[in-house]
């Protein structure tokens, strides 16, 4: 379910809980729940939350403990994954219990014995790996932090005025230093101990996923781990930023943001992707890309950027208005189509339609395709002038002229309104465009932005580090919207070097519970559908450097992803997803063709290469772990897996399912491979 529908539904549900629904809202809620399965599910989940709270708190208050507390509270049942005829699933538990614990209990005691299984790298067999290259994080002893007011409690409760934050800006501004100073002084003022530096193995997997959109191959990971150089992290960041895979990865992320993932026959998705990819590959300024997207004309095939607006011009360009504000400006203004923004007074219905008015000249024309392949859709500008008409809440007809950021544009038909809009959006030294991009890009790397959700940056939603956000945005503009420089600074910054396992600290840093993020550790990020697909490819293929193989599977990837995403066919251009920790995703991982192929042991697969390379059991296990999890096993893991192999081989030989012991070993190693691919560690970026 896309954010707008979800947002509307949540607003309705909140009003329901406080008994504030109007009859119209009540009817709207009714209709959404009847017509939309996702909405129904959210309704039931939300009401269950409300109901449990009402029931339990009320019962506790009135002393009726018996009704509640007599009930046995079973521990949540962990669903067992059972692969027929194997016990590989239990192996997955042996292997990766540490990661599941971490996911369940973000503040888990790192000394807990179970958690230590996967972490204690001192016991790793890969003891020859170089020590972590990053210097330990040192808190700067600077004076200013002592009188800096703590703003960690600034949350949505008390909307801040949109006061300008005064940020001194110097030419010799170094973003890496600025990031370090800002986050470290916050750690100190809040009293949080940052996590230790990430091990090289954890870090190399992270940086590949974030920049190249996939895990490193066993060869790539091994080379990095064995490299003794001190500056190898910075060198790898530069190498990946310059690779075609970086451009492809960012182009994919932005294509998904701009037009969604579900199929739309009007569009040429590949063409938009190719355009964005070119922009990222040549490191063109972000302002230029946005200008092209807003001002494009032509057919889906002729013009890559035209696909953006071709996707959103339905329903009087209401989606175009909302998506433009959300993607480029980080502002959620959908609700102001019909009424004033609930917390954000600057945005009323008038502002929504003034922005909408910029799209008034834009139309989609149908024409026969030149190659005779049916109709094609062309984005055009019609020379019309005058205002946009809309109806306000009182049912009166109102007019809106094109106006953005207090600047009115000549409503004459000779004005190219979209060109004017693009000009206004990128104008000035401190455009919201830059703040929105910095915030979203930061969240790409850390899982959370300074402002969350990343596309809801109104004054009701305070930033965790407002000065830093402002300084990075200023720097981004001063450097002419240099995307790659921004990514480079973030990847080289202190918080990006930290482990995902929290440090030994009383204070938790848990933005998932609504606290402002402190970036005192790397937050876990689930892999996106594209990252997961490409990473399974990398873990499957014997190719030493898999970029090209991944490239050629783009179409298969799109098809695979299509099974998780569906267009909801609503007037708001929403799409729903069954990806992200759901049963369909889990089943696809367990039984899908992709994973079946990966563990088949067929020729040209990484597994067959490992089997051919060495008969040594420990070495095979080490290579399997490296190919799937980009790290070597700990001693405990190695012992556990070897014990599993012995049992499994004996069982298989006794059952007569395999011709000989060698085949039994290979079958059992396939189970190990399968277990690694199905581990929580594999589907999470940490």
């Amino acid at each position, binding site marked *: 379910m896309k954010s707008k529908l979800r947002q509307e539904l*949540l607003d309705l549900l*909140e009003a*329901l809980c*406080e*008994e*504030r629904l109007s*009859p119209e809202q*009540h009817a709207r809620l*009714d209709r959404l*729940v*009847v017509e939309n399965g996702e909405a129904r*599910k959210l*309704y*039931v*989940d*939300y*009401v*269950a*939350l*409300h*109901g*449990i*709270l*009402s*029931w*339990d*708190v*009320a019962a506790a*208050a*009135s002393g009726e403990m*018996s*009704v*509640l507390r*007599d*009930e046995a*509270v*079973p*521990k*949540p*049942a*962990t*669903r067992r994954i059972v692969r027929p005829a194997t016990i590989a699933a239990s192996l997955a538990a042996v292997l990766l219990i540490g990661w*599941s614990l971490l*996911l*369940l209990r973000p503040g888990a005691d790192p000394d807990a014995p179970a958690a230590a299984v996967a972490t204690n790298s001192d016991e790793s067999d890969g003891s020859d790996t170089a020590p972590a290259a990053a210097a330990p994080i040192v808190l700067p002893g600077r004076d200013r932090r002592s009188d800096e007011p703590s703003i960690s409690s600034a949350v*949505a*409760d008390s909307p801040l005025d949109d006061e300008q934050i005064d940020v001194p800006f110097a030419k010799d501004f170094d973003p890496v230093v600025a990031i370090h100073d800002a986050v470290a002084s916050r750690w100190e003022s809040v009293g949080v101990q940052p996590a230790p530096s990430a091990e090289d193995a954890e870090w190399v997997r992270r940086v590949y996923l974030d920049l190249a959109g996939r895990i490193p191959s066993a060869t790539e990971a091994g080379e990095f781990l064995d490299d003794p150089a001190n500056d190898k992290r910075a060198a790898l960041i530069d190498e990946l930023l310059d690779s075609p895979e970086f451009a492809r990865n960012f182009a994919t992320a932005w294509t998904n943001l701009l037009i969604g993932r579900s199929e739309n026959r009007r569009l040429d998705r590949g063409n938009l992707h190719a355009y964005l990819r070119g922009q990222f590959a040549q490191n063109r300024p972000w302002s230029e890309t946005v200008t092209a997207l807003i001002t494009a004309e032509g057919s889906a095939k002729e013009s890559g950027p035209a696909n953006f607006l071709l996707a959103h011009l339905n329903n009087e360009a209401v989606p175009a208005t909302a998506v433009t504000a959300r993607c480029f400006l980080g502002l959620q203004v959908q609700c102001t189509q019909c009424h004033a923004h*609930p*917390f954000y007074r600057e945005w009323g219905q008038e502002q929504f339609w003034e922005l909408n008015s910029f799209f008034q000249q834009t139309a989609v024309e149908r024409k026969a395709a030149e190659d005779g392949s049916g109709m094609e859709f062309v984005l055009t500008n019609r020379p019309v002038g005058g205002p946009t008409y809309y109806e306000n809440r009182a049912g009166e007809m109102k007019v809106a002229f094109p106006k953005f950021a207090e600047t009115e544009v000549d409503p004459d038909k000779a004005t190219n309104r979209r060109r004017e809009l693009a000009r206004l959006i990128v104008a000035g030294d401190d455009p919201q465009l830059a703040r929105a991009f910095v915030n979203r890009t930061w969240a790409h790397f850390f899982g959370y932005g300074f402002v969350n959700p990343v596309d809801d940056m109104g004054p009701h939603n305070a930033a965790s580090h407002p000065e830093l956000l402002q300084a990075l945005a200023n720097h981004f503009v001063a450097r002419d919207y240099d995307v790659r420089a921004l990514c480079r600074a973030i990847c080289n910054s202190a918080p990006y070097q930290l482990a995902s396992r929290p440090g030994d600290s009383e204070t938790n840093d*848990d933005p*998932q*519970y*609504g*606290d402002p993020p402190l970036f005192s550790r790397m937050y876990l990020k689930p892999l996106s559908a594209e990252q997961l697909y490409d990473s399974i490819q990398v873990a499957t293929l014997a190719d030493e450097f898999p970029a090209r193989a991944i490239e050629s599977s783009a179409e298969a990837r799109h098809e695979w992803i299509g099974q998780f995403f569906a267009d909801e066919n609503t007037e708001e251009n929403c799409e729903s997803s069954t990806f992200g*920790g*759901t*049963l369909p995703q*889990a089943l696809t991982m367990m039984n899908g063709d992709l994973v079946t192929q990966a563990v088949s042991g067929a020729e040209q697969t990484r597994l067959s290469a490992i089997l051919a390379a060495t008969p040594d059991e420990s070495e095979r296990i080490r290579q399997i772990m490296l190919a799937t999890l980009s790290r070597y096993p700990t001693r405990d893991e190695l012992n556990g897996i070897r014990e599993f192999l012995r049992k499994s081989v004996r069982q298989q030989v006794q059952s007569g399912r395999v011709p000989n012991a060698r085949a039994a070993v290979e079958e059992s190693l396939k189970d190990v491979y399968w277990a690694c691919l199905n581990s*929580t560690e594999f*589907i999470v970026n940490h």
Partner: protein
Amino acid sequence: MTTELYPRDHDADEGDSPSSTNLLRPPSEEFVQLFTRNQRRLYLLILAQVGGTQDAEDVLQETNLIIWAKYHQFDLGTNFFAWAAQIAKYEVLKFRHRRVRDKLQFSEEFVDAVSREVLERPEELEQRRHALELCLQKLRPDDRTLIHQRYQPGQRGKHVARDLGRPANSVYQSLGRIRRTLLECIQRRLATEAHA
């Protein structure tokens, strides 16, 4: 299907006091336990269909009366919740008839769709409740206090606002934010467990 359907003529003996019909056989220990243990689930099933907590409590009370009046019709060993849910279904229906003029009534399709959705996910509730317990502990103390105040018996957001001397809208906003946080936290935990 061994579940005994709720008989359609139940109105006839609804007014009977438990003593007149149930002297035959006192409710067994097991029945009492089943009854107690299913109260919350029943309440949530009804709440999803009627939307308001006060209404849900009323309907639950009426449902409980019928359950006690009918306990001898329940076969131990069959699905208690399914049996009780049938009773609740008719009580919701009766409640809706009484409120037929109320503008804030959900449609029949709504009630059907929602009750199906709840009944399709029977085992989830305890996990959800357990997750909520953990998620509540993760809230900031202020937020936890606010939720606690809001959910005192008979309280509503507006009362809390009055007691705290805060504008009602700001309290509504806070409560909405906290509930969202809790909802997302629960979803995340359930998703993690499904994967672990």
